[in-house]
């Protein structure tokens, strides 16, 4: 079994050639019923495995939730468990089943398969499809439609459609689009949307951080990566005290500073004296507020939203709470709002906090007139603000970014010798440098050593010459905890030999014998 790809808690495993999970078993050929009440029958997933006996006499709301056999863990009643409870159970999937057991959810509806796969279920079956088929319904992209043309063997027709549906789920995982598929199935399915709603925290805590583009909409306000970004904004501090907060609109091109509008803003402002004391924060949905230094960080550079120019009540509420996390009363002397359609809202929100704010009242912020007004207002506002030099500013930028990215383990970067400036040249001595791939500071090998001393996650690998990526088979043990997508340090023989990005969660590395465990960025 080899993990190929992850999203959320879901996994795309390669079991054999042409056999991957999430997988669907067909009841007539792959499932054998038990002989008596105390055994569980068998399931064929490539090989034939024993199933655990069904949960006689057990309360489905009490742990342990899964029935286990040697190779299979069964989530019984997946079709009907209360959404909130299901998420609670999902949090325990791997602690109960481990990583090497396949997780099977019997008799679920096709429409629930994407969300269950997102939460970590590997195997589904066609039992409910058989029941639907016997009543004359046709399966079409996970939905049931009433038959109006005669199909001879409806069940086999629906089975092939179910196969396509599962293929779509697998594809979604490998393309990082499972979340989208789940959102689609949740739209008019209250059960799925409730499960999705309740799973937000779990996905932030344990879900894989896959850097795939978030093609956003209103639903995405609950995307784990977005909630995580928003929450971590409270760790963030602007580069210096008493700067002027400049709120700009977001741009279609990411990171924002690469867009033509933001380039024009920059070119206009650089002519103003002491322009380094302006702190650019972009206003956007669904992320809320993105300070300039964090524009590389996932998902600030990885999302897309249908621009409507209208802000919903929930978005305004979200902007308010993000603004509070930024703590403007403490950090900023004044504010300028130059944000087009969101100017009015942002001006009011900043005013609510009691900060001196100027609204440029420009409808098209990057137009020639708009830029001129911005320049004048910036000049006036900055006139009584203390001068901020390049070096201090760079230091502050690095500090803010390091805190945001590494949280409490960030001291080694904050205290290092910081040079260069945003965006690409910023460095923390020889410990870390800006990396669009990592989405912020990418650690060098030396940085990895420091990070591991500060409590960063360490993977202890077998003793061999590490060339290229680290595979699961070479992992001996680990220290600390991480999610997929986090930076980790590899130690061999007590020496740090590489740093890279984790491609599996800790226990999974131990229990898998195949698959990439760490994508290595720097070798010793």
């Amino acid at each position, binding site marked *: 079994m080899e993990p190929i790809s992850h999203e959320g808690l879901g996994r795309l495993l390669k079991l054999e050639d042409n056999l991957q999970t999430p997988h669907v078993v067909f009841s007539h050929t792959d499932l054998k019923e038990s002989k008596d009440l105390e055994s569980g029958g068998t399931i064929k997933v490539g090989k034939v495995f024993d199933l655990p006996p069904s949960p*006689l006499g057990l309360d489905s709301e009490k742990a342990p939730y899964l029935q286990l056999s040697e190779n299979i863990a069964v989530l019984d009643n997946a079709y009907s468990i209360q959404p909130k409870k299901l998420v609670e159970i999902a949090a325990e999937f791997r602690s109960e089943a481990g990583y090497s057991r396949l997780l099977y959810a019997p008799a679920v509806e096709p429409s629930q398969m994407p969300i269950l796969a997102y939460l970590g279920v590997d195997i589904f079956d066609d039992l409910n499809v058989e029941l639907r088929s016997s009543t004359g319904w046709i399966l079409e992209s996970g939905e049931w439609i009433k038959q109006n043309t005669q199909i001879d063997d409806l069940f086999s027709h629906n089975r092939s459609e179910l196969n396509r549906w599962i293929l779509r789920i697998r594809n979604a995982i490998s393309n990082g689009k499972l979340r989208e598929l789940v959102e689609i199935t949740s739209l008019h399915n209250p059960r799925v949307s409730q499960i999705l709603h309740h799973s937000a925290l779990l996905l932030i805590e344990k879900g894989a951080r896959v850097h795939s583009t978030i093609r956003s909409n209103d639903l995405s306000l609950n995307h784990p990566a977005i909630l995580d970004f928003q929450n971590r904004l409270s760790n963030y501090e602007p580069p210096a005290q008493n700067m002027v907060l400049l709120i700009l609109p977001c741009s279609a091109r990411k990171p924002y500073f690469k867009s033509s509008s933001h380039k024009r803003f920059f070119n206009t402002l650089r002519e103003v004296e002491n322009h380094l004391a302006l702190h650019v924060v972009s206003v956007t949905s669904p992320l809320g507020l993105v300070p300039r230094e964090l524009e590389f960080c996932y998902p600030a550079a990885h999302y897309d939203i249908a621009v409507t120019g209208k802000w919903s009540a929930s978005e305004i509420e979200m902007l308010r709470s993000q603004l509070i996390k930024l703590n403007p009363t403490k950090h900023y002397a004044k504010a300028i709002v130059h944000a087009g359609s969101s100017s009015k809202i942002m001006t009011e929100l900043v005013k609510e906090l009691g900060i001196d704010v100027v609204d440029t009242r420009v409808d098209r912020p990057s137009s020639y007139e708009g830029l001129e007004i911005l320049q004048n207002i910036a000049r006036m506002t900055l006139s009584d603000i203390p001068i901020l030099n390049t070096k201090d500013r760079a230091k502050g930028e690095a500090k803010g970014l390091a805190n945001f990215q590494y949280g409490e383990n960030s001291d080694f970067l904050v205290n290092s010798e910081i040079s260069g400036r945003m965006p690409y040249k910023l460095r923390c001595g020889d410990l870390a440098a800006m990396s669009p791939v990592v989405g912020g500071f990418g650690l060098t090998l030396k940085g990895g050593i420091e990070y591991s001393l500060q409590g960063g996650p360490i993977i202890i690998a077998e003793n061999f010459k590490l060339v290229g990526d680290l595979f699961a088979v070479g992992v001996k043990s680990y220290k600390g905890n991480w999610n997929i997508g986090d930076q980790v340090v590899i130690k061999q023989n007590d020496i740090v030999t590489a740093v890279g990005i984790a491609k599996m969660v800790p226990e999974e590395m131990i229990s898998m014998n195949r698959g990439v465990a760490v994508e290595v960025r720097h070798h010793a």
Partner: protein
Amino acid sequence: MPEAFVPLTDFVNESKSIPRDHPLDKPVAKWVEEEVLDGKIVEAGVVILRTRGCYWSIKEGCSMCGYFNDTVPGGVSDDMLREQWKKVRSTLRGKKYAKIYTSGSFIDPTEVPFNFADEVMSDMSNMGIEKVLIESLPEFVNPKNFAYTNAPKLEIAIGLESSNPVVLDKSVNKRLRWSHYVKVCKLARDNGAEVKAYILLKPPYLSEKEAIEDAVQSAIDTAPYVDKISINPVNVQKNTVVEKLWFRNEWTAPWLWSVIEVLKRCEDLPVRVYSDPTGGGTRRGAHNCHDCNKRLLEALKNHRLGSGDLKGLHCNCKSRWNTLVKQSKLRRNGSEPHGYRSGFAGSRHF
């Protein structure tokens, strides 16, 4: 007791609630129904007396039994029992067959005092009642508990539920040993009583197919030791494990087709096997689709009274039942999607 029993014990206890206050001088219910006596259809008077209730339900209870809801935890005094008796005599007068139920065991002397039972029996005998049906757990079937001075012919209904120990332990939560059951059946018959066995159809956790097979096997096992067998499809009673599983959609009430299947497969047994589904045709009782519930219940009634058979019944939902039964063991519980019995014709969510 093996450890595996424990989860269901907790579950049963957590599902229960303290019964409401009931008037002590009134019986739970009384009615008249048709029954077969010596091959003829007669009117039978049915009475449910309110008592302390089943000792087992106070201790733990069975997973499907909600009769404790009708009981009085502190017990009912002899005077109040006599008051109740006065109110039910009119229902029994002129009948040849009487069924006297309590929500427990009639011959448990701690539940129904022997003196009161003895009075009641001779009263019925004087009224001209020829046969009386009472119910009991096997542990009370002891000749001294039903050595009445003057009584009609006794018929003791004993709940076997299933002859499979796994079903009894892990699904029903009833402590009953097969050998003991056989022994008390013999004991009752040797002391002049007839024995009627209750067998459950689809206790909780069991799938439709397992349920059918279990009921048929239990009927075959028990036939030599009893005089008749009643197949009782499990219905959803308040504050029970069954109700919880039903609310969670982990179990649904059996199909009427399953009842008919069991009866057909028991046709060749030397004893009468019949069924009178409690709550039949409703969501909480055995049911099929809306189109055939009434027809099938009518057929079951005629079969019970010996005035009809179960042949020639048909409905569109039978093929659905067939499909479900074939895959039901693979589903690993007793459930099915909402609305399946009617072919998802309504706009129920799924």
